[in-house]
């Protein structure tokens, strides 16, 4: 087994009296792709936000590469550089061009040579098919293009692990594909990723392990074939049933 990159132990997260995450433990090894699924409000997104210390936590520990991360960590910005995050609503910086969106953190935070980062950024943009958009502003891009830029922006920081928070949920169906393709490429390159998504077929294709989260607890943790074909719990079965439709028209035709 590869080394442990992310280790969550007994994580507890509350909003006032509401228990959002209840004693969640999860270990992610280098090179693993974890897909987190579950009904809305089950705490999937909150879990990702905790990993990046965007949310204060009430109990447990989160370790990245052996170092504990929390909002109180002294080297928080340093630890956050190891974690790349892509949000549902892209969150590019509207006042900067695509290229400057990408260059900002590597040059200002990591103090890398601008020319060197620029070269890398252009290569990555080329790979996601957006080289010619480098000097455009985010408002001139479609949702799918924005999301691909957001992925490149995260990649340019050379993170150890990438977090994707429902990155296709706000996109039109044809744009979903172009973003998912980029993520599949990343998985092939052996990047470590934790993905929250509602795209079940995609989850099955990309995941090494699927985590089913319900009511703030991990209910199932299995390889994708086991999870999708033979879910162990009743709750997971119900959840997966939501994604299959019976052919109503065909049935009535048979009955006639």
């Amino acid at each position, binding site marked *: 087994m590869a080394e442990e990159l992310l280790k969550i132990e007994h994580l507890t997260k509350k909003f006032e009296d509401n228990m959002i995450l209840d004693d969640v433990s999860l270990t992610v090894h280098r090179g693993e792709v974890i897909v987190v699924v579950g009904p809305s409000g089950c705490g999937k997104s909150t879990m990702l936000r905790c990993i*990046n210390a*965007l949310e204060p936590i009430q109990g447990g520990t989160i370790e990245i590469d052996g170092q504990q991360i929390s909002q109180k960590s002294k080297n928080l*910005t*340093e630890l*956050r*550089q190891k*974690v*790349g*995050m892509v*949000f549902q*609503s892209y*969150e*590019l*910086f*509207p*006042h900067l061009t695509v290229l400057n969106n990408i260059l*900002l*953190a590597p040059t*200002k*935070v*990591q103090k890398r040579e601008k020319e060197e980062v620029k070269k890398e950024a252009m290569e990555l943009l080329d790979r996601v098919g957006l080289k010619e958009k480098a000097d455009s502003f985010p408002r001139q891009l479609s949702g799918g293009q924005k999301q691909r830029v957001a992925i490149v*922006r*995260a990649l340019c*920081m050379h993170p150890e692990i990438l977090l994707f928070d429902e990155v296709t949920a706000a996109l039109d169906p044809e744009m979903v594909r172009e973003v998912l393709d980029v993520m599949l490429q990343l998985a092939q390159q052996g990047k470590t990723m934790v993905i929250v998504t509602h795209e079940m077929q995609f989850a099955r294709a990309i995941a090494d392990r699927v985590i089913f989260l319900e009511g703030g607890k991990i209910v199932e943790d299995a390889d994708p074939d086991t999870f999708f074909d033979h879910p162990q719990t009743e709750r997971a079965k119900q959840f997966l049933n939501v994604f299959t439709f019976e052919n109503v028209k065909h049935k009535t035709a048979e009955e006639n």
Partner: protein
Amino acid sequence: MPDLGLEVLLKGKNMMRLIGGLGIALKISLISVVVSIPLGILLGALMTWKNPITKAILRLYLEFIRIMPQMVLLFLVYFGSTRAFGWDLSGETASIIVFILWGTAEMSDLVRGALSSIPKHQYESSEALGLSKVQTYLYIIIPQTLRRLIPLSINLITRMIKTTSLILMIGVVEVLKVAQQIIEANRMASPNAAFGIYLAVFLLYFLACWPISMLAKYLEKRWK
């Protein structure tokens, strides 16, 4: 052609006196702007804090200044302070105080609006990239806030210049007061002077405010 009384403008030093009056108006607005913009930025930033006491106090201040007509504020500061505290404020000083109070209140509300219109996610995505709090403000929040703020604050400046036309009520001899004096002095010789003189006053205000509002429009377009 009807007699517009334009010749009065050219009599003696009339034109120069009008321009001098505009100078007084601009001086008062300029001093007030220079003081109230940084103060407004400070108070506006404080208004976005979560502390309920700071918030309540600033809110009260803002609403008080907004509800009160500027004229009443001028009277309150100019006449009221003399009666109550025995201060002997000149009309100009009283005007500057009122304009600073008013400008600061308006500016702080603009700053608060601009700051709170930046979505929370912008802070988060910046922090997620590893930027520190200071870097987040420096590279992400302040540039976006300024873009929203500059056109609005330039409009505030023109409003302040125009509102100086009220300060003749507390005896400050600014452009409108000079105009009235000229009209009075020429009542017998050129009874129609009112039109020509007020036309000149209009043009002077226009010349002062128009370039400023063009600048606001230009910046708004450029940063859209």
